[in-house]
């Protein structure tokens, strides 16, 4: 069992990592739901089988006589029959063309007055008038909304055949309102629904939305450009002066570092440590290679972490290049040592600064600037990809980098917590062997493999 404070810290770290992962998964699931729904056949808006977002009252309204008076029903019947006939006529023509997948008889009877362009092309007056006659207010909303956002067709410049196909098929999302009401014996199943695959390129964003979106991008562009406008100079000076005065008035000697800056400094020093270590290993490995001809054993492929460097054999009559390299190596190592000393000093300065004000309550230091060095141009930034494969590679790499940096961090944490435990029990002569084994597998193989320990029984 691990001691209490160690346990607490380890658990906190690991749970933090697990929660971060879970958060990503949640967001991903949300987007996945949306995307999957988009690629299925779109349910007609307003039908009982439509998305739960419409709510139960929708269904009630539909099934109840939200349908208008019998008068309207009759008229509707007449219209339906007329259109059925028209569709039958068309069907005869279209069959001659390429395979029309749409179940035409069905779509004929479904004819909702409130569908859009295609019907208006053929029966200009009637569709519009029936649309306005739709009594149920909810119905109006629903049928108008798909009418607005419904795939408006591009000007049907293509031939008759395609327009007929569209006419028969694109009744999809717009209908459904009358399905239950007019339910003629041809109680069709869900009519040919709208699928993105077949008709995706007919979509068009609603006009109001387009306007708002273009205004939005224009304004954002303006925001980034006003920063470089002429009066910005005077404003910038005024701001700088104000900050200066604040600083002076507060009586502090120097500007205090914000938490974000401090974190950045610490990260910088971390990077420095890593680079210095790499350099040290290069030097020592190079030195060993030089001396390798003398039959000395190398301490492993560059992982010279814990072992002291082997003694370089003094060469009595060394060639000038040899001792120059030795000198170089020596001076580099001493220089690196000095730099590490500077880093440590800086770190201690930061610590002293921090003592003045402890890190505040659970405050993520990045609360205000989510992206530390955010690009001041707030305009649209695009990421261009050319194939699914590329996009998947990119996303997978992103996640791999995130996972690796988390792993590196956890490795350091585990090292800091667990290695002392193993070494602490050493003097007793028998550290918990399961502990050793577990720690080894955790730290050295990321938990994937285990070492074997054999008891060495003295024979005899």
């Amino acid at each position, binding site marked *: 069992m691990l001691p209490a404070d160690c346990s607490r810290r380890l658990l906190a770290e690991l749970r933090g990592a697990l929660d971060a992962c879970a958060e990503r998964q949640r967001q991903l699931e949300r987007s996945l739901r949306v995307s999957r729904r988009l690629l299925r056949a779109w349910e007609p808006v307003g039908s009982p089988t439509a998305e739960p977002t419409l709510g139960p009252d929708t269904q009630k309204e539909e099934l109840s006589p939200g349908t208008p008076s019998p008068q309207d029903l009759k008229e509707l019947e007449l219209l339906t029959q007329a259109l059925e006939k028209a569709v039958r006529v068309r069907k005869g023509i279209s069959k001659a063309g390429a395979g029309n997948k749409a179940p035409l008889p069905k779509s004929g009877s479904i004819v909702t007055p409130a569908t859009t362009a295609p019907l208006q092309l053929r029966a200009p007056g009637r569709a519009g008038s029936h649309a306005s006659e739709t009594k149920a207010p909810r119905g109006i909303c629903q049928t108008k909304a798909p009418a607005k956002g419904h795939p408006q067709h591009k000007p049907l410049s293509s031939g008759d055949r395609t327009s007929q196909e569209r006419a028969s098929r694109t009744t999809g999302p717009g209908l459904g309102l009358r399905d239950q009401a007019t339910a003629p014996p041809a109680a069709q199943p869900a009519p040919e629904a709208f699928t993105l695959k077949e008709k995706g390129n007919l979509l068009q964003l609603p006009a109001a939305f387009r306007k708002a979106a273009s205004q939005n991008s224009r304004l*954002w562009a303006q925001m980034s450009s006003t920063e470089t406008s002429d009066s910005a100079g005077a404003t910038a000076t005024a701001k700088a002066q104000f900050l200066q005065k604040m600083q002076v008035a507060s009586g502090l000697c120097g500007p205090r570092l914000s938490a974000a800056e401090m974190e950045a400094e610490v990260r910088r020093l971390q990077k420095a440590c890593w680079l210095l270590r790499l350099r040290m290993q290069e030097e020592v490995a190079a030195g060993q290679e030089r001396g390798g001809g003398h039959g000395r054993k190398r301490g492993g492929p560059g992982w010279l972490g814990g072992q002291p460097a082997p003694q370089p054999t003094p060469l009595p009559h060394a060639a000038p290049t040899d001792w120059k390299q030795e000198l170089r190596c*020596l001076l580099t190592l001493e220089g690196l040592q000095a730099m590490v000393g500077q880093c440590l000093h800086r770190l201690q300065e930061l610590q002293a600064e921090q003592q003045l004000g402890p890190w505040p309550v659970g405050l993520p230091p990045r609360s205000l600037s989510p992206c530390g060095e955010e690009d001041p141009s707030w305009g649209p930034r695009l990421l261009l990809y050319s194939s699914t494969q590329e996009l998947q590679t990119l996303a997978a790499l992103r996640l791999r980098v995130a996972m690796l940096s988390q792993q590196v961090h956890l490795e350091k944490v585990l090292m*800091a917590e667990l290695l002392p435990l193993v070494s602490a029990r050493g003097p007793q002569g028998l550290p918990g062997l399961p502990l050793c084994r577990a720690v080894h597998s955790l730290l050295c193989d990321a938990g994937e493999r285990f070492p074997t*320990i054999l008891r060495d029984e003295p024979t005899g």
Partner: protein
Amino acid sequence: MGRRRRGVDRTPGAGSGALPEAIAALSRALSAGPSPETFRRAKFDRPEAAPALWQLLFRVLSPTTQAGAKASQGPEAQVRFVKAALRCQGYPRPALAQLPEDGSQGSRELLLALAWLLARGPLLEQLLARTRVRLGDEMTVCECEDVAYDGASVGLPALCVEPNLHVDIRHVQWLMGKLRLRWRNLVSSQQEQCALLSKVHLYTRGCHSERSLGHLSATETELLRDPDGSRQLLQALEQENARLEAAVQWRRRELIFWQWMDTVLDSCPTQAPGAAPQPMFLPRITDRGPRQWGLVAGELQALQEQLQAAARPRRAAWEAQVRGRSQDPAWSTTWRAVRQAVDLELVALQGAWDRSGTPAQPHGPHRLVRSESGALAGRGLWAAEAIRALRSKEACLEVALRQLQGQCRQELARLVGTLSGFIWIPPPGR
């Protein structure tokens, strides 16, 4: 104090309405900020202006995800949060920390704090970007969002870990395994999402009103499918447009505001310069900052010891060699040459981390755009480049991880070697 006047202080060169207009624009850009009258009262440190300003600062400083939760905690909690956050940002004036926690006073100090935040950085842009309506399918390439994810869990109130809990090492192993599994699930979900998005982009080719984008994003397609959502999105867009317009107006007029703020600062009583800032003894829920510091300090110290161990024998050997050579005239010139070369190298090495990161790296979320023909060259970041950059980062991280693991292996081998009576067989090497 107490002089009731309509209109504005006579700042030179300003029309009488320019300052209230500027402040009104600022308030609109901050989405329902206090009125110009409140600002004017704050200059004279009127107490009735204080609560509005506390609330404003609270809204500005808290991250969006937590704002709702914290707002329900009451004004004292808000006051404490604002004080902590400002300190976190490095706010210089100690007077803020001394304000009472019931939120009834200090409007002038708060006004100064707000101006300080505005002056330091692009506060408005950051706030607007935080709540920006994203119309495209966004993906971030940089690592900044990773910090946001890690921070999301850190910000949770009181990770409820019992103080006296002992865990078994096997529990730790189990948690690590669980983490690995979660990542794997994440990767496969992500792959599926990419495939789906790619299909959506493919099928909606040629639909977008903006020729440069070429196709609809999943978000836009979704709003076509779902009219309710489209209404909400449209509303959000329009609200954002209103705020952006206000921000643009503010930009044009802000010079007057800064001139006025100078007068506000002048009207403050001067502080005793030697007054030490009162330390705020806030309970620490997380010690992520000090922990990070501790890790780095440990690493640096370990590194220093290793360097010492490597350099000392070499120095000794060198001294032994040099004794016979100091008279050699060519020797000293060579020595100096080597010294200079090493110094240059080390300076270059230091530059590697002194530089403030790679400036070329694009930050923030990018909108995904499928473009096979390469027609949009120059308009954005190419996936191939991003992949290259990520691969090199991946390689670096893998090296770092191997290095750490190697260190552990050696350390453990050393520790276990002290045991007698056991044979330690490490797992088959990679």
